[in-house]
């Protein structure tokens, strides 16, 4: 701790010192007056924005010291359930930074971007092959935008068919983005219960399906890490009333090369390239959320898509039934590029190995913990599982939050806590395939030690980080969302 430089981690605005510079501009080399002679006075501000003034070393020390206050995949095991925090290969960063990729303008001519278009075309093909759904759009910026895009596609499809379908059905264990996306797409949402086995309650689903049903959204494997083994009956029931099955692809890491959403009944899906295909999470983004759909839905996908004709690639905007677009330009190309590099690095067998080892690691961790922690939904899982601290809470007043916070002291990121909502005191763990047996052994040891520690000590955890237990109620009650000049 003594190595921390506290002065450099004051806020930038507190470090500002009038007159310091860190970036100088060349003198103007064209023979013309300055902006005040070229633009009307009433358009100009009296002074530039009051940004901080610092030297380059101030800036660098500040952000480098701050970086040490983060846990990250490169520094710590990060078993965050549902987030697939796998290793982000360094080669991807170098490839994404190549001038021939990073310095392409989004609106330059197709003829001048053939290498880029080829890469994106092949990415469409790879994602179609992995999903078993033939038509892809790489446009959505993240999983949530992928959901919205697919639901807009569904709405356009039903409108085109002259059907008034107003409802989207969503399991109660689903990610919160599912209902939020459905609402923006103009649908009413209906919640479907999970059975005691953690799977979709088929009877409840069937009782709510009718000719108003547009889409049933399912996460498979679900957020409990279980494969919906009745998926065939589920898909059939939805299709029987004329609805579409949407797969939330957050958990694709569990099924690469093993089974395909298009084969088990999904009509539409999104990928999270930043999860499954290891785009770095960037402390909250950027992501990339491509969607795949069946052939009959392809005309409604947003434009453009990449097409190939006579060996030439081009962006196809001539799609009269397309829903429009959900963002400017092509998509989060930098993340798609990393996903492409990953798929090319692994090949078909490598992708399947990823899944096999992700599932092996999760089951091994489950086996290490199951005598010590309650795992309400059985002895087997796919790529993740959900333990519960409810028994420990009852006996010892130790909560899932306490356990998560204390893990930080042991040098591990906390699991996802309090999600999914269907498990109380949930601790959702996804180790991913890029961790070793030794790491999992040590992590399980830490979890077992923690539950035997003093409850009061745990309530105050973490004890070794720069801060502990921020007051979130105060933060929300009187929000301070920016620094302001005192006085």
């Amino acid at each position, binding site marked *: 701790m003594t190595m921390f430089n506290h002065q450099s981690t004051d806020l930038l605005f507190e470090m500002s010192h009038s007159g310091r510079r860190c970036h100088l501009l060349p003198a103007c080399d064209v023979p013309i007056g300055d902006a005040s002679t070229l633009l009307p006075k009433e358009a100009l501000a009296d002074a530039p924005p009051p940004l901080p003034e610092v030297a380059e070393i101030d800036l660098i020390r500040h952000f480098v010291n701050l970086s040490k206050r983060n846990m990250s995949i490169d520094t710590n095991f990060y078993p965050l359930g549902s987030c697939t925090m796998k290793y982000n290969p360094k080669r991807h960063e170098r490839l994404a930074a190549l001038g021939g990729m990073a310095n392409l303008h989004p609106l330059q001519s197709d003829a001048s971007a053939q290498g880029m278009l080829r890469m994106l075309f092949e990415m469409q093909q790879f994602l179609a092959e992995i999903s078993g759904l033939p038509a892809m759009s790489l446009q959505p910026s993240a999983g949530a935008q992928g959901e919205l895009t697919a639901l807009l596609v569904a709405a356009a499809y039903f409108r085109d068919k002259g059907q008034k379908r107003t409802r989207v059905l969503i399991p109660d264990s689903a990610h919160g983005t599912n209902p939020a996306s459905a609402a923006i797409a103009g649908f009413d949402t209906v919640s479907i219960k999970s059975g005691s086995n953690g799977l979709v309650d088929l009877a409840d689903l069937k009782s709510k399906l009718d000719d108003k049903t547009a889409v049933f959204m399912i996460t498979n494997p679900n957020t409990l890490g279980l494969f919906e083994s009745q998926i065939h009956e589920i898909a059939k029931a939805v299709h029987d009333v004329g609805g579409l099955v949407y797969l939330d692809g957050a958990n694709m890491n569990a099924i690469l090369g093993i089974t395909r959403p298009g084969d088990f009944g999904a009509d539409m899906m999104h990928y999270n390239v930043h999860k499954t295909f290891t785009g770095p999470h960037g402390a909250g983004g950027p992501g990339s959320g491509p969607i795949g759909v069946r052939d009959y839905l392809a005309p409604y996908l947003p434009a453009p898509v990449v097409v190939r004709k006579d060996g030439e690639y081009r962006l196809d905007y001539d799609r009269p039934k397309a829903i429009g677009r959900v963002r400017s330009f092509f998509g989060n190309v930098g993340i798609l590029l990393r996903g492409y590099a990953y798929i090319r690095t692994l090949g078909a067998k490598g992708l399947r*190995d990823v899944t096999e080892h992700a599932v092996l690691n999760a089951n091994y961790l489950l086996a290490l913990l199951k005598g010590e922690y309650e795992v309400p939904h059985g002895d087997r899982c796919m790529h993740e599982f959900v333990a519960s601290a409810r028994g420990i809470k009852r006996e010892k007043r130790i909560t899932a939050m306490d356990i998560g916070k204390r893990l930080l002291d042991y040098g591990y990121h906390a699991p996802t806590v309090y999600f999914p909502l269907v498990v109380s005191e949930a601790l959702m763990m996804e180790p991913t395939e890029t961790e070793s047996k030794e790491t999992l052994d040590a992590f399980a040891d830490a979890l077992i030690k923690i539950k035997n520690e003093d409850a009061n000590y745990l309530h105050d955890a973490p004890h070794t980080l720069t801060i502990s237990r921020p007051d979130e109620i105060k933060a929300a009650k009187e929000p301070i*969302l920016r620094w302001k000049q005192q006085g």
Partner: protein
Amino acid sequence: MSGLVIRRLVLEKSLYLLNTPADQKAMLDKIGVGSIGELFKSIPSEFRLDRPLDIPPALTEIELQQHFAELCNRNRSADNAVCFLGGGSYDHFIPAAVDAISGRSEYYTAYTPYQAEASQGSLQAFFEYQTLICQLTDMAVSNASLYEGGSAVAESVLMAFGIHPKKHKVLVADTVHPEYRLTLTTYLANLDVQIETLTTTGGTVSPEALDKAIDDKTLCVIVQHPNFFGCLEDVEKLSAVSRAKGALFIVSVDPISLGLLKRPGQYGADIAVGEGQGLGNPMAYGGPYVGLMACREEYVRKIPGRLVGQTTDRNGKRCWVLTLQTREQHIRREKATSNICTNQGLFALRAAVYLTALGPQGLKETADLCVRKSHYLAQELAKVKGVSLPFKAPFFKEFVVNVPGDANAALSALLEEGYHGGLPMARWYPNLPNAISIAVTEKRTKAEIEGLVNAVKKVLG
């Protein structure tokens, strides 16, 4: 030693995996199954893929690098053709400090900062980003960023709808980026909101035309400043007309222009949005970028996206957390203010480093160079026979010229000469068949500018 040898053999077969055959056996024994395959029993056999995926063979790092070199060779980047393209993505300079900081893997391999104690670095950086965007726009509140400029416009209208749920008419100027407008139309397709496009002549919205189109049912007015043609809108009058009718005034800005131009808060904007690509982010064929959004204080609980707030920890120490999460989808589900689940964390960080690296003076000088160089190019092009400037309105760093004949043919010919010379406006504005928009950043030199002028003469000559 033998363990290490075995691990290497495994790695050669399956990169990024660590479990050796001996590890696997021990793990399977602990689980109580005989093979990895048994772990997949819950997947019905009829749905198991009975063939390998049709994906090309694995590449080593050397082969992958070579493959990318081949792909790059088939691209004409801004490194080997001088870039005068704009339309929402610009070839601005990126100080090395931006890459140095965003290349810290403590930032780029972290997750969303839900565990505040283990994320103070990113949380403080986002709090600083929010403050910098407030300073830049002169608005009271900024979120921790959205995806990019187009969906930021759509989100701003969803937000406006949350503020005034009984108003249903949206007025959007046709000088707003056509892809932003299409995004807006797409997002709102199934909601009870009507979009009316304000058609303009002369390259800008006339306040009188807005006054005619606006009424008491108008939810919001959206303009872009500088607009898609590069022209400055009369934002003060447009804002006043909007306010007089009780409509929210939403402006999409180019952040670089704010080194010189009046800031949204100074002319009474209710919501300011914008594309943050110019703030230290490569053009990257369209993304990832970063969407800016800031608003008035009274709308803080209606703003979409992540917000970082200051608080204290149990020892009274100042610190930062994600806050006001009750607006968000993981709590509110279908009643959330937006479905957005992320910010563009790494690109918000880059924007924060960029704005700090430039500082007030650097941003002003950057904007000044953009204005002068673009005006110099416009002035020189106007002297070329057959070239004219159709719009008389003042512009910032981008302007429209008319060329005789087919704009696309001229642009192809310019690329042959080594210039990404501009964007053909007819693609979005069929009524401007001969128009090209040209953007000039602080990076363009006198030699490059005069080179383009000479190339235009040659191509048109």
